[in-house]
């Protein structure tokens, strides 16, 4: 069985390398890259080592903490990493894998549940996420062996839950083929996005629901104890092994059952995607407005909003921003400074969208290459597409800010557009700085994303410095000025690198 996964892995990475203009135009580099990328052990090993440094930093925090509650709260936040990796890699990477047609040859084979190969293939990409949590787990194992092993099991369960939820997203939103773009299509997509946002926020909702229950029912509060029943807070139970083991068993049974159902459904939908058809009608072509930039951005957005699973990649900032926003609304106090911090968080986290936006094309890159398209225009269009969803999120946050702060909220309006644009321009310059003219999609791995987060982080530190040094209102004009110059420089560099 693993032989097939190995073939799929090689094919996937061959396709990725082939579409990477940084290496495809350089024969020596191409061969070298193929050697690295097609070697599963080496590729996973190198990524894991890269993450180990981050994992070591977290582990130090746990090593010097004498208090158990500090350890559990640190582990709870760490447990989010494999979970988010699981959900993200499954929802986004699987859409990409399927768009490359990797499973087409398997469809004709007599396989009962071929989607298991998809699970295995994705689990290879999930392995490096453990490098971030493993050092901390090892520290806990050394200090408290049984609790440490339980923590490890919770991390494994976390990635499994994320993977199962990712498969659910893929099955319900990603594997439907709507035959006709009806009138209600946009509305349905908006609803799907809303449902997805709720879905992603379900763990926060559960936490708040528990707080509510604790406040209103002593019986329930004593039954639940002081630990949450919702992952990742369940990891707090590792110092009560019996309870923790019981919770692990319950979670495993629930998500194991869901997985069994969903993996069969995924395969049957890969074999025969659900077709939503409607009555045929003859129509006349109506041209729309716009030049090449508009055409490229609207194409990207159409595809992203139609492939809801792909949209998950753009909602990562929301996942990080949601608790701050909910806390602000709950407390009835969402100051301008809180909003600014949230703007920076969303803008910074929007960097994660790089992976999804560069995977919009898939096989159709070959079609794009037949068109007279300049690399600079293409890169700029990708930057604009990438910044659209975070900007919409920030405009919604701005609405909340206006509710609490009145007209002063308008001071932050430029940030809603400029911060995501700054992040996305940096990302595009990083991937499109090569000299060749051809349009190509670079390989995006977690290492690239980490490097990009660091670069964007430095840029944001530069933008945030005036606010810290001069105060919010006095520092804003300078911060906007710096950002405008930065955007202009990035645009110039993107043009030059064509």
């Amino acid at each position, binding site marked *: 069985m693993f032989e097939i996964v190995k073939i799929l892995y090689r094919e996937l990475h061959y396709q990725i390398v082939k579409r990477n203009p940084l290496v495809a135009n350089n*024969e020596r580099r*191409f*061969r070298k890259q193929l050697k690295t990328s097609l070697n599963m052990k080496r590729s996973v090993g190198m990524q894991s080592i890269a993450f180990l440094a981050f994992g070591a930093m977290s582990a130090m925090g746990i090593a010097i903490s004498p208090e158990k509650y500090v350890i559990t709260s640190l582990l709870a936040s760490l447990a989010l990493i494999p979970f988010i990796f699981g959900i993200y890699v499954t929802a986004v990477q699987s859409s990409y894998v399927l*768009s490359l047609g990797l499973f087409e040859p398997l469809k004709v084979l007599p396989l009962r549940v071929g989607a298991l190969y998809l699970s295995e293939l994705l689990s290879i990409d999930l392995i490096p996420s453990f490098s971030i949590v493993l050092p901390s787990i090892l520290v806990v194992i050394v200090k408290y062996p049984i609790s440490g092993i339980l923590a490890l099991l919770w991390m494994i369960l976390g990635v499994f839950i994320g993977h199962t939820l990712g498969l659910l997203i893929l099955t319900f939103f990603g594997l439907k*083929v*709507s*035959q*006709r*773009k009806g009138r209600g299509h946009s509305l349905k997509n908006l609803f799907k996005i809303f449902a997805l946002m709720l879905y992603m926020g379900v763990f926060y909702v559960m936490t708040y629901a528990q707080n509510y229950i604790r406040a209103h029912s002593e019986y329930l509060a004593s039954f639940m104890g002081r630990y949450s029943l919702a992952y990742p807070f369940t990891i707090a139970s590792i110092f009560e092994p019996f309870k923790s083991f019981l919770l692990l068993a319950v979670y495993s049974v629930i998500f194991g059952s869901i997985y069994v159902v969903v993996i069969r459904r995924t395969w049957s939908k890969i074999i025969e995607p659900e*077709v939503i058809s409607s009555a*045929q*009608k*003859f*129509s*006349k*072509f*109506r*041209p*729309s*407005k*716009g*030049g*090449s930039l*508009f*055409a*490229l951005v*609207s*194409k990207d957005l*159409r*595809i992203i909003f*139609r*492939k809801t699973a792909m949209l998950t990649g753009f909602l990562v900032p929301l996942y990080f921003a949601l608790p701050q926003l909910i806390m602000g609304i709950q407390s009835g106090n969402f100051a301008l400074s809180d909003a600014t911090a949230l703007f920076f968080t969303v803008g910074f986290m929007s960097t994660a969208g790089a992976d999804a936006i560069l995977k919009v094309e898939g*096989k*159709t890159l*070959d*079609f794009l*290459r*037949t*068109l*007279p*398209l*300049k690399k600079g225009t293409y890169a700029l269009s990708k930057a604009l597409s990438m910044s659209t969803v975070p900007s919409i999120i920030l405009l919604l946050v701005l609405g909340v800010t206006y509710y609490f702060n009145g007209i002063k909220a308008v001071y932050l309006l430029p940030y809603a557009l400029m911060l995501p644009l700054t992040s996305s321009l940096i990302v595009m310059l990083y991937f499109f700085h090569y000299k060749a*003219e*051809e349009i190509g999609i670079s390989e995006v791995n977690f290492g690239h994303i980490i490097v990009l987060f660091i670069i964007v982080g430095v840029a944001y530190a530069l933008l945030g410095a005036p606010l810290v040094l001069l105060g919010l209102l006095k520092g804003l004009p300078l911060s906007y000025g710096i950002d405008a110059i930065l955007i202009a420089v990035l645009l110039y560099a993107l043009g030059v690198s064509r």
Partner: protein
Amino acid sequence: MGFNFVSTFEHLNVGVTFIKLSVLHIPTVGGMIEVEGLVKKFGSKVAVNGISFTVHDGEIYGLLGPNGSGKSTTMKILSGILRPTRGRVLVGGINVAKDPIRVKEIVGYVPETPVLYESLTPSELFNFVGGIRGIPKDKLEDRVNYFVRAFEIEEYLEQFIGTLSFGTQQKVSLITALLHDPKILVMDESMNGLDPKSARILRELLIEFKRQGKSIVFSTHVLPLAEMICDRVGVIYQGNIIAEGTIEELKSKAHEENLEDVFLKLTESKDEVYNIVQALKEAL
């Protein structure tokens, strides 16, 4: 310069109406396509091994060859998609290696297999291509509506491309290549998947394009079709052009009655085919 499609399709009864389409003015130098000593390597593998040929204005040039002979690679180079490793390729007087973007502006390329955005509708795809190629709105509307009617895909305009049959996707791919009224057409086995009616329409369309002075490079495995429409053919085998000329010239040189036999003889496959067929007959 304009052209009248009515005369072309009247006898096919496809119900088209007269639409006058202005042709983009594209200056050309010498032959529309000039290939000299073209070499394309993929690593150590030589896909095209120093071929030379010329395609003139108003000529349909057939590039024939077995699978893996270098046809598609040559066609991708002519379309500005791939760059030559060595040699000189001028398309409409533009050097492909130096300015592939300008080459793409004047070439319409139809691949063997349509690779299109499956979650867009044909309407959206035509708008997308129109936007990138900067085709004026009224011209785009005229051309799309004309071709959509000619190839009978009106009912699929608002359906997602991923849900369309291979043949319909091929028609969509074909239309996207014709939208900007290309001066040069590069068609890599583009008749694949087309129903007989659409194939006939495309054939007539190519003849009309030729009449207008456009250059067409055309590859097919359907040799009777090549015999029917190509002015000259080049037989490419293992990356080399091993024969070139009009169909009659090739038949005469090879002392064969039809193009299929000429092709098999040139590619040293005739005896091989005979032996395989005999072996199969015995085995069955």
